[in-house]
């Protein structure tokens, strides 16, 4: 089964966004930037799921997965932001290394 060019472009972009977001989650020195990187990874997953269903006649399954991904991603991000606020109130910094040092 061949893949259309626009489908391949969107799939490659989505995959790249997932890897960029996941990599940035690991290397970020600010918890807010970590949450933003997670959002980028969610964007990439949504785009890859959407483009994976483009070649078929009915896209209901991929649409359902994208809606699921959007709402679960938004919920996880909201909880992550709440945790960031709680951590900032307790340690007065958003640097993970600094937080680790203050905990010891």
């Amino acid at each position: 089964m061949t893949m259309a060019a626009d489908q391949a472009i969107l799939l490659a972009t989505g995959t790249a966004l997932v890897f960029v977001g996941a990599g940035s989650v690991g290397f970020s020195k600010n918890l807010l930037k970590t949450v933003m990187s997670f959002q980028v990874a969610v964007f990439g997953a949504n785009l890859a799921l959407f483009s994976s269903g483009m070649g078929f006649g009915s896209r209901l399954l991929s649409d359902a997965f994208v809606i699921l991904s959007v709402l679960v991603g938004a919920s996880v991000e909201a909880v992550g932001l709440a945790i960031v606020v709680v951590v900032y109130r307790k340690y007065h910094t958003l640097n993970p290394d600094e937080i680790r040092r203050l905990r010891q």
Partner: protein
Amino acid sequence: MQSEYVALLLSAALLASVAAALLSSKVSNSLIALFYTSIILGVAFTAYGDALLGLLTMITFAGAISVLLLSVVLITGESELGFGPRRLATAAIPLAGVVGAVSLLVLFPGQAGGYVGADSSVNVLIFLWSVRPWDLLILIVVFAGAMVTIVSLLGGDDHGS
């Protein structure tokens, strides 16, 4: 052939805005770039025939999550909300209007400025209620659970100290 150019353009815009969001040193600039990323993703979904997903993405990420991020940025004092020179912003507003109008004409060639009939909106919404109503119920429960967690995390501040 034209859809490949659209895909290339949207992918380039997505990657550029993501790079701006992740490489910017100021958190507030990252927030603005992330807002544009949400908008571009919604436009991409809409351009490929799924207006419902585009609207959902824009409402959820560009609307709710961006406001939530902005609140947290303001609470934590990480904000340096300088939007650059005021003249540049004033010049960008009509340009944004022109780009928006051209995008509408390209995306909805037969409907720009016209009345979108009731049938099309019903057809969009019938996907929600005829195919997977239980999925939606589960998602609403997950979202409500997340909101309850946030309220309890932010509200239980006085017990520790």
